[in-house]
């Protein structure tokens, strides 16, 4: 501890605290320009200079640590004049076109000039101008280099946090300008974090260009609903129209960083395609109706089914709030007396159950900062840079200043690879085998210590050659992954939801975790989800085998696949689907479409008329995330508040209100009046939520806590039947097709956002560099991807780091329906890639 005197006020702070922080905590304000708490230190703007008694020169407070007995003056005449001189110098070449500049009103340079700057400047020379018109740097970023004050925050955040390294400086001295690559050479994440950190109007959002002044905007701090990272963001609107999303430095785990979807994926809220009224199918077409009519039709449909003892099922999206998901399962289980419910349509229901157990989700939440405070991090089952960009940013940022070995196991190459100590490129759906290989190495090396390891028997049957050929990964790399783990004191294993798509032998994760714990390592398990409330959905019991809080159900319910199978046999009388586009998402589009046709009464509740909604008997208009209250549980197990600040469009209603109304139509005692009320009931049903106070959930939310129930029994973990594609390649179909979210899109919702569509609107196919060379195609060329049942023409993207023989098509696009390649029960499909000669640009669907 060091005791320092700041402006005569004595305070005691930790050793190594910066003068800036010490002064702030003592209540003195020191202006800064280039300083940014979560970036490397630059100390170039010299605005934060302070006087240290006994030192001749003024010192930059943003890099100078306090020393015991130091006496610092932040308000002395020398400091004040230096400060105002620096601001005057910053303003010398600044164009001062504040009336035009979009940053006006929230500009840090304006603020410090107003507070600390000179009242008058003697500058009377001609100002430096790089260009007259602003550059359009990317579909979302506009640059005006004239306004740049060379704080280099954008350059630093791009390189250090985002890992894109697309911004840099050119020239030197007074002619220094920020610059970037042009057009197709720009390998930008379009995340807009550079805009967020820019203290002046040098980098500006293209979508917010000349839309409004910040003081005209009304906003709400809420949580992003795209991926499981659970970023806090602020949605701002003027006159009811959402104009932008920003992030605040002090809010949430993301600390000012957002990805392209989070920052630009908002304009669907004001989309004119939104459903604004309920619709009922009359004579083959869907026609607008009132809520009373719609609820009456639903009541008739459901009561009829109950009377006849028919099957009722429900599928809810994992993008609904906890309250809605809880209410949904309550409606299903209590009112409609059925266990046939599921969340999402892409996962293997059995694998989900195993996943929740091996990942020890019932043990409560693990903060990402705790999880990343580790010696070794294994990321498996997720293209984390694309699926959860902000998690990727956090890993990159936190791994920079400390020694953390990152091991990435994935068939696709990703941006985080460059920060990794080791990458394991494996064949798709071989995650379980990779884990079993690592476990085997650990077991071989420490057999004496691992005598008590449960599950060691299956390990013994694993041979090095077998794993190498199954995973397509060099055994040496698997060995070095194990070596990294055995030489660390703590290991974090981040498992993504790709392991739920093409299920592999997840139960080996349990063996690995058991082995590491027996070896005395601190093991943290960190799930990575591509849907914002995937964890919440399971915790609320939207799963046929799990009640709220992961307690087991009595009856045998059907999962999504089971429900569709029952439907295709014509057994499903009523199916209530909320927010899920099954036809587009279920990994066998043809089957899903045929099955849904045979559902006798299909109720779809959504914001848009999706492919599934088009088949419904009744369509109910739901609300977007800024139009309803509730909570989300992110992948960490952090509960965060969703806040309503706009009324739903048209006659649409918050989803929980609709579920409550549907329930009340069938059973009048099903009565819920507010999201907070429902949350109170959740606390009873899922004890992990007991300590969370709905009303006082602030910026960073609250982690759920482990309950008293006993932890997962290692022996009882159900094994998963592997659906790994055969190792020997079929000469006709040499590629394995995998799918997932694209960096700029998430599910189907983001495609309704015009800004994200500007970045990428058509499906692409990503192949490895090696394959591209063999096929003699390059980035931007068209190829035909041919499966056994479906083919499509797509634009090639080359991923330098991907494994050979893997083709990736994002699942987000409507022009190419990736799920049509799949056949139910056969796992990942094999495809052929044919270069397209000549120029044909149509989406070719067989």
């Amino acid at each position: 501890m060091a005791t320092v005197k700041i402006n005569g006020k004595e305070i005691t702070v930790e050793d190594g605290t910066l003068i800036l922080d010490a002064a702030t905590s003592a209540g003195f304000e020191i202006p800064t320009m280039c300083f940014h708490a979560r970036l490397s230190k630059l100390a170039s703007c010299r605005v934060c200079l302070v006087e240290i008694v006994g030192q001749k020169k003024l010192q930059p407070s943003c890099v100078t640590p306090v020393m015991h007995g130091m006496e610092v003056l932040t308000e002395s005449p020398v400091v004040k004049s230096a400060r105002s001189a620096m601001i005057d110098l910053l303003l010398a070449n600044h164009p001062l076109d504040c009336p035009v500049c979009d940053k006006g009103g929230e500009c840090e340079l304006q603020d410090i000039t107003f507070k600390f700057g000179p009242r008058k400047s003697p500058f009377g020379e001609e100002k430096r101008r790089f260009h007259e018109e602003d550059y359009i740097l990317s579909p979302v970023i506009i640059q005006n280099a004239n306004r740049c004050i060379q704080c280099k925050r954008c350059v630093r955040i791009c390189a250090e946090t985002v890992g894109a390294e697309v911004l840099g400086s050119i020239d030197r001295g007074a002619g220094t300008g920020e610059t970037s690559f042009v057009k197709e050479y720009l390998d930008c994440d379009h995340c807009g974090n550079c805009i967020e950190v820019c203290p002046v109007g040098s980098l500006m959002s293209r979508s917010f260009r000349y839309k409004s002044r910040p003081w005209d905007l009304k906003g709400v701090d809420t949580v992003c609903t795209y991926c499981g990272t659970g970023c806090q963001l602020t949605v701002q609107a003027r006159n009811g129209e959402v104009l932008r999303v920003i992030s605040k430095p002090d809010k949430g785990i993301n600390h000012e960083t957002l990805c392209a979807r989070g920052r630009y994926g908002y304009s669907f809220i004001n989309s004119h395609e939104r459903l604004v009224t309920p619709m009922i199918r009359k004579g083959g077409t869907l026609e607008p109706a009132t809520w009373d009519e719609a609820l009456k039709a639903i009541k008739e449909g459901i009561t009829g089914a109950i009377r006849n003892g028919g099957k009722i099922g429900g599928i809810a999206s994992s993008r609904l709030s906890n309250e809605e998901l809880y209410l949904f399962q309550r409606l299903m289980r209590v009112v409609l007396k059925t266990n046939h419910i599921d969340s999402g349509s892409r996962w293997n229901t059995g694998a989900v159950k195993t996943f929740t157990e091996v990942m020890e989700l019932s043990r409560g939440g693990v903060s990402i900062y705790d999880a990343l405070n580790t010696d070794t991090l294994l990321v498996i089952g997720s293209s984390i840079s694309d699926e959860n960009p902000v998690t990727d940013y956090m890993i990159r940022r936190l791994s920079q200043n400390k020694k953390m070995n990152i091991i990435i196991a994935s068939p696709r190459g990703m941006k985080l690879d460059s920060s990794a100590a080791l990458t394991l490129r494996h064949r798709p759906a071989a995650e379980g085998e990779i884990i079993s290989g690592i476990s085997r190495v650990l077991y071989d090396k420490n057999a004496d210590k691992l005598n008590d390891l449960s599950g060691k028997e299956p390990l013994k049957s694993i041979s090095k050659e077998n794993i190498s050929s199954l995973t397509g990964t060099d055994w040496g790399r698997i060995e070095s992954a194990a070596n990294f783990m055995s030489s660390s004191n703590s290991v974090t294993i981040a498992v993504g939801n790709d392991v739920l798509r093409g299920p592999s032998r997840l139960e080996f994760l349990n063996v690995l975790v058991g082995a590491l714990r027996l070896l005395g390592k601190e093991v943290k398990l960190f799930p990575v989800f591509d849907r914002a409330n995937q964890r919440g959905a399971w915790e609320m019991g939207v799963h046929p085998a799990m009640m709220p809080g992961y307690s087991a159900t009595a009856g045998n319910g059907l999962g999504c696949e089971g429900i569709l199978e029952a439907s295709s046999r014509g057994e499903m009388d009523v199916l209530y689907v909320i927010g899920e586009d099954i036809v587009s998402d279920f990994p066998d589009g043809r089957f899903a479409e045929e099955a849904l046709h045979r559902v006798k009464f299909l109720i779809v509740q959504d914001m848009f008329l999706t492919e599934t909604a088009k088949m419904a008997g009744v369509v109910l208009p739901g609300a977007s995330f800024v139009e309803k209250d509730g909570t989300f549980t992110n992948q960490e197990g952090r509960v965060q508040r969703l806040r309503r600040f706009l009324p739903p469009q048209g006659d649409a209603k918050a989803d929980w209100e609709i579920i409550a109304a549907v329930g009340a139509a069938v059973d009048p005692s099903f009565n819920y009046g507010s999201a907070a009320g429902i949350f109170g009931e959740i606390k009873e049903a899922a004890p992990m939520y007991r300590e969370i106070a709905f009303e006082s959930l602030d910026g960073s939310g609250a982690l759920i806590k482990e309950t008293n129930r006993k932890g997962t029994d290692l022996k009882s973990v159900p094994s998963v039947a592997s659906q790994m594609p055969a190792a020997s390649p079929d000469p006709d179909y040499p590629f394995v097709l995998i799918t997932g979210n694209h960096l700029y899109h998430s599910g189907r919702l983001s495609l309704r956002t015009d800004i994200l569509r500007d970045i990428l609107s058509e499906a692409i196919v990503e192949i490895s560099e090696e394959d591209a060379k063999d096929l003699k195609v390059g980035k931007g060329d068209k190829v035909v991807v041919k499966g056994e049942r479906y083919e499509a023409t797509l634009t090639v993207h080359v991923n330098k780091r991907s494994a050979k023989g893997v083709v990736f098509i994002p699942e987000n696009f409507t022009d190419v329906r990736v799920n049509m390649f799949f056949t139910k029960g056969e796992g990942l499909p094999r495809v052929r890639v044919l270069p397209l000669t000549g120029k044909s640009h149509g989406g070719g669907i067989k």
Partner: protein
Amino acid sequence: MNRNHYNFDLNGLLKKVFFVDLIQGLFITFHYTFSKTITMKYPDEETWIPYKRFRGLHTLNKNKEGKELCVGCELCQKSCPTQCITVVPMQDTTGKGIADRVAYRWEINLLRCMFCGLCEDACPTEALKLGREYELAGTSMQRHLLTKEELLAPQAVPAEFEGGVIVKARLGTDETGIKVVPDMSVQKRWW
């Protein structure tokens, strides 16, 4: 001698006989009949043009090249104490403004405006001026919600006109109300 004894006022009598007071009074009337008129024949024939400092109806100016000076910075809206101004900016690539930022909407609710002129002070480009139009009575509320297009139209009194004079005017009426149209070419000072 005491002339009061007679108690006879010849002057008074003569005045009465010859209607002197009447004539005197009539003379004033007569004098004004032929002297210079100081009342204004408003609104039928004449109207008062105020001085430059006058704060009347708002006007949005253009520069010499005919480009809109307003860049939609919203400072007038921010400075307005009665919140009667609404500005929505937009991007413009046609070059109609002095910058690529122009006002998409610039609206003022004159029913709320108190003509304090703070908006004029706030304007960084001298686009906004309070002009010299003061005949703001109207027959409908709608007439008092003025849009950018109406405000961009030049006012009858040009900005550089000194003012402080009476000019010839014509009274015109249309469906929106009564309008006094000044003719700046014929002017006079009121004193």
